[in-house]
Every structure is written in C-alpha cells, then in structure tokens.
C-alpha cells in the first residue's frame, strides 16, 4: 500500500514539475524577445582576404633531398575537452606535409603527432618524448598557452625549434627561450583589438568580462580589461571544467551588462553562453580565438546566435586553394588556426628543403626566416614575436562562423 503511495507521490512530483515546465515554455518566446535586443549591430561578413602573392608554399621546387628519417612533430590536443582546436591545426600541418612529399620524391618528411589533451599537466610527458627522439628536427606546437609555458624549458634544453600556431599569452616570449616562435599575434595585440571592437563596432556601453583560470584566459582577460577602461562594468572568473555558471550570470544580470566578453576556451564558453541566454540575457557574447570554433555553435545550439569572436587568425576558408585542398584531407572547412598550422609547417619544411636537416640548423633557419606565408609575412624578432599581426573579427550567422574583417585598427 505504501509502495503505491510512493509511486503516486513520484508521479505527482513529476507531473507538477512538467506542468510548471510547460507553462513556462508557452509563455517563453514573448518574454525573452521583448526585453531589449535593441543594440544589435549588423556587421556584414567579408568574402575575401588578400593573399601575399609571393607566399612560400610547402611544395618548394620539387628537387629537395633529405634522409628518410627526417621528422616533423605536432604536439597538442588531439583529444580532451578542447580537442577540435588541435585537430584544426594538425590537419593544416598534414596538408602542408602531404603537398611537400608529393612534390619532392627525394625528400619524404615524416609527421608524428603527440597528444597533450591541451592540459599543462599532461603535456610534459609527450614533449619529453619528442625531444628524446633524435629524428624530430622541428615541432609545430603547442597550441595552448598553459601547456606551452609548462614545456618551453624542455624544448630549450634540447635546442629543438617549435613554432606555436595558436598560443597567445604575451608572457610566453618573455622567458628568454630561444627555441620558441609564435606564428600569430599575442594577446597584448588581441586584447586591445577586442576592446576596440566591443566599444566601437558593437557599440557596447557596459561590458562584463569573464575569464577562466588558464594562462591564456588570465593573460587575455587582463589585457582586455585594461583596454576597455570605463566600458568595463564588472569581471568574474570561472574555472576549467566548470559546468554551472549561475552565480556569474546572476552578477552579469545585476550589472545590466549589454555585452559579455569571455576570455577562455569553448569547452566552458559554450555552456556559459547557453546558460546566459537561458537566463534571459539579450546582449552580445564575444569570445576570443579559444572559443571560435564550430564546436562552440554545436554545443551552445541556438543560443550561439548572439556571438562574435576576436581572433589573431586569418580566415583560411577564404583562401580558395587552401580551402579546397584542406577539405580533401580533413572532410571539413578549415577551422581556427588551420592555416597558421599550415604556414608554420611550411616554414620548417622550406628549411629542410634547403638542407637544414639538423636541429641546430633548422633553429637558425627559423631565427633568420623572412618571407611571406599564405596568411601573413613571417619574420620574428629576437624573442620570437612577429612584427604587426592582424586580428580578425568573426560572427555567427545562420549557425556558421563567418569573418567580418580586420578589427582593432
């Protein structure tokens, strides 16, 4: 008898719950759309970017020779919560190596991938393995700032050159490392550009800045909040792996912010945006390169339609030759940093073709490098930074990320 009661109590609970759900659902659209979406700014998408005419390509002159053991490695996320950012990169590298090996029968460069899961704590193992493999003469990676910081010394000790296609923490080039090169602008460039984008183009009056606890999020968050000045109405911090953002969201709603800038990765950014929109936030959500990926849209669903991105990455999908070739091997459009990965691999491959086939030779080759790649001109200063890299803006349009041109200038 009492069991029956329990069952009916559970059923009652469920029914009541569902009832409330349903009522809510019906009244839904009217309330969420009525509260001011007034400051939505329409920025048109761009459809082409300039490609340097004399860009160095992986295929070279086709006459290169090298030992069959010559190897280039990728170290970075292949699995893990932010795996897609790494996958974009190694597909770019793979494309460069395929094109090189096809054109150069005398020089078949091997490509090895090492998985760090994007986690600073797990990265030292694979990197130690890389530096101990003598055949590896150059590395593209590591993609994320935290893991780059954790492993820079290991590369340095063994004199192994590595070009990061995506780590943007400004502090990385201040460690005195001579083997670290960055194939894009850092967050000292992205932060101010993002701030300018928010206040000028998006006409944000009240920006709420949220950063995660990674080296990347902290660095970018600091740079951006400094540049935002008075437009910043508040800031908060979240942690890697966080799933519930209700406390942060409550603060954002209380601050009456019209725009949220999230300095972190999509693994947390997507549920954050989703819960933000769920709580009735009608302003814009702006994320950096770590959030700019189709996975963000996939995970946040229709909530993502309020999103913009800032990224020191060049829209590779607008470079037709690159985009078609990339699609063949990756079965997908080029993603964030695909072209940076491709360019970084090209820098290393062109050195190998010129006979720089030891670690020391290849390191000095990169150090003295001065040529165009598909995405930009590559010439590093003594710390490993590029001169004046561009930052692009992107937006979500019909469930896809589309570029809206150079920002911050």
């Amino acid at each position, binding site marked *: *008898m*009492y*069991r029956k*009661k*329990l069952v009916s*109590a*559970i059923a*009652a*609970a*469920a*029914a*009541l*719950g*569902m*009832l*409330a*759900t*349903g*009522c*809510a*659902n*019906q*009244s*839904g659209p009217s*309330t*969420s759309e009525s509260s001011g979406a007034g400051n939505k700014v329409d920025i048109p998408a761009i459809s082409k970017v300039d490609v340097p005419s004399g860009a160095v390509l992986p295929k070279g002159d086709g006459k290169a020779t090298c030992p069959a053991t010559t190897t280039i490695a990728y170290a970075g996320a292949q*699995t*893990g*919560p932010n*795996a897609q950012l790494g996958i974009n990169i190694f597909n770019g590298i793979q494309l460069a190596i395929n094109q090189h090996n096809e054109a150069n029968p005398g020089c078949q460069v091997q490509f090895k991938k090492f998985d760090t*899961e994007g986690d600073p704590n797990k990265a030292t193992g694979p990197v130690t393995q890389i530096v101990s493999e003598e055949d590896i003469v150059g590395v593209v990676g590591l993609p994320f700032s935290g893991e780059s910081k954790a492993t820079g010394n290991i590369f340095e000790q063994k004199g192994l050159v590595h070009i990061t296609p995506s780590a943007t923490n400004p502090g990385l080039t201040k460690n005195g490392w001579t083997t670290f090169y960055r194939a894009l602008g850092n967050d000292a460039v992205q932060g101010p550009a993002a701030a300018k984008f928010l206040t000028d183009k998006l006409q944000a009056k009240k920006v709420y800045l949220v950063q995660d*606890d990674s080296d990347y999020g902290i660095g970018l968050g600091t740079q951006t909040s400094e540049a935002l000045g008075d437009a910043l109405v508040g800031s*908060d*911090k*979240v*942690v890697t792996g966080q*799933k*519930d*953002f*209700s*406390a*942060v969201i*409550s*603060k954002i*709603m*209380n601050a009456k912010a019209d725009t949220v800038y999230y300095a972190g990765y999509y*693994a947390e950014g*997507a*549920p954050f945006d*989703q*819960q933000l929109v*769920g*709580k*009735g936030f009608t302003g814009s959500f702006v994320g950096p390169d770590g959030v700019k990926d189709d996975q963000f849209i*996939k*995970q*946040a*669903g*229709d*909530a993502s339609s309020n999103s913009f991105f800032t990224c020191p990455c060049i829209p590779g999908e607008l470079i037709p030759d690159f985009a078609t070739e990339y699609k063949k091997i990756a079965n997908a459009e080029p993603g964030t940093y695909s072209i940076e990965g491709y360019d970084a691999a090209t820098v290393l491959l062109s050195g190998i073709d010129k006979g720089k086939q030891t670690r020391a030779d290849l390191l000095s080759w990169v150090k003295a490098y001065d040529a165009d790649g598909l995405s930009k001109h590559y010439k590093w200063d003594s710390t490993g930074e590029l001169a004046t890299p561009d930052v692009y803006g992107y937006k979500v349009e019909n469930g896809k990320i589309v570029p809206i041109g150079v920002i911050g200038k």
Partner: protein
Amino acid sequence: MITAVIPSLISTVRTDDTWITFDVNSLAENFWNSTFDGLTFGAIYALVALGYTLVYGVLNLINFAHSEVFIVGCYGVFFTLSALNFGPSAPRLAFWAIVGNLVLALVVAIVASALMAVIVERVAYKPLRKRKAPRLAFLITAIGVSFAIQYTIYWWRGPSPEAALTMFRPTPIFDVFGTIIDSQQLVIIVAAVILMIATDQFIRRSRTGRGIRAVAQDPDTATLMGVNKEKIIITTFIIGGILAGAAALFYVMKIPSGVQYSGGFILGVKAFAAAVLGGIGNVRGALLGGLLIGLIGNYGQVLLGSSQWTDVVAFLVLVLVLIVRPEGILGSSLGKSKA
C-alpha cells in the same frame, strides 16, 4: 546581520590577490539569486545524498559507487532525449509533447539508476557480505566499483562531455524580493521537495520503511523478528537508485552539458558531504545537509568573487560543523525511530 559581522572580518582577509575578493556588496546584491540557485543545487544534492544515507543506515557502508549510479541516470536522460531529437537548441515542441518526453526521460533515468544500484549491490557487496568480509574490504570495493563504472563509460563514450541538451528555455515565473524565479528553478525545487517528503514518509510510515529502520537499528534482531534482510537491502539500493535517477533528470535540466564520464564524481562527493553534514544515516539530515551545501557553496562563491570557491567554502563549512557536532547537524539516527 551578515552585513554587521562580515566587515570586521574583512581586515583579516588578504584581498590583494585578485582570485579572492571579499565582496559583501556583491553578496547583498546577488543574495536572493544565490539563494534560489543554491536551493536548486541543494535539492539535487539532497536527492543524491538520500542514497548515501539510506545505504549507510542499513549496511554501515559508504556506497562510493552511488555517484556512478547517478551518472548512469544522466546517461539515461541523455540517450532518451537525444533519441527524441532534443539538442543544444531549445526544442520547438508543444507543451504536452515536452512534458511527455521529459516524463519518459525521467522513467528511463530512474530505471537505469535503480538497475545500476541493484547491479552494484549484487556484484560488489553481496558476495562480500556472504563471506563476512571486514568493513574495510567493502570500502575498497566501493571505490573500485566506482572507478570501474566510470572508466567503462570513459571507454565507451570518450573523455568529452556529451552534447548539451536543452529541455526547455527557462522563463520567469514570478518575482520574489526583486529576484525572478524561473521555471527551471521552480520545477527542480518543487519536484525535489515532493520526492524528499515522499521518501521521508515512506521510511517513517510504510512497512518496508519500518523494515529498513529495523535493519538499520539491529540487523540480527530484525531478522529474528521476521524481517527479510536481503530484501530490505536490495529495496534500499533501489530507493537510492530511484532518487538518483530523478536527480539525474534535474541535473541535466540545470546543467545541459553535464553528462560526462566523470560528471558524477564531484557531485557525488558533495552529496556525500551533505549526508555527513546533516548526520549520515538520517533521512532528514540528508535533506537539510543537501540544501545547506547548495546554499553555502553559492553564497561562498559570490562572496569570495570566483566560482572556484564553491566547493572550498562548502567543505570548509562541513569541517567546521563536524568539529562542533561530529555526528552531523541532526545526528545519525536512521535506526532510532525519531528519524
């Protein structure tokens, strides 16, 4: 009152590190918001905590695999709703269609969790009980089973969280102290409270409930008095599983992207802490502890300025309470009928 006590503490807290602030204003501004969110989480913790407490009551065993019983329920919700074409975007369905789908997901989650609980009992604990294994062996087995289930899911589903599932877009229902309560919070709190009361009444009033209390008090005497101990044990696990399954639905409702192989771990630890805080073995203690852990964590993170303090504050309070009342707030008394 809070505002009177706290300023005196501010001077003693170092606030130069930006990762910890001591923002009383922020707490005051967000007080009701934090309260309702805290209660929402607390309700979920409480439902899971009941599972720990009931099993502890009858077996004197911390069933560490209970967090996996919970996450299996989450997967039940995930697969059901995915099959019904729910996804990250809010569904465009009629009201009754959503209700129907969620009830179905609830049933699947409850069945999945209850089944998992029974399997855990039969595979991991019953053979040990038969051989009269020492207490420590149960504890280690519990941890082992927990990992075994977790990594079976890992092996099957991979390390990444499953795609988010939005069951419905939360919408404002009514206003309390200038803070909006949305449909999601209301559904979770109301449904969870009904379940808690039902469980409490079931344990106190029903024949099976009396059996559970009898076994908790003195298993041997209970057996002599005609209580079927094995049946009571398995029933206890099933009740824990049912509540965990219901908690799973609410959890996925609250955190759409929370379905992951390791997703039950922290929640399980917090629910366990809630059970201990209220007094392990005590049904009402688990309810109180769950709500308190939810509230305290939420206040803590707003006060200290960052989400990473949620768990720290919750556990700190747990430690402080246990120093003063080692038995937990309400004491551990499932067996004594004052429960």
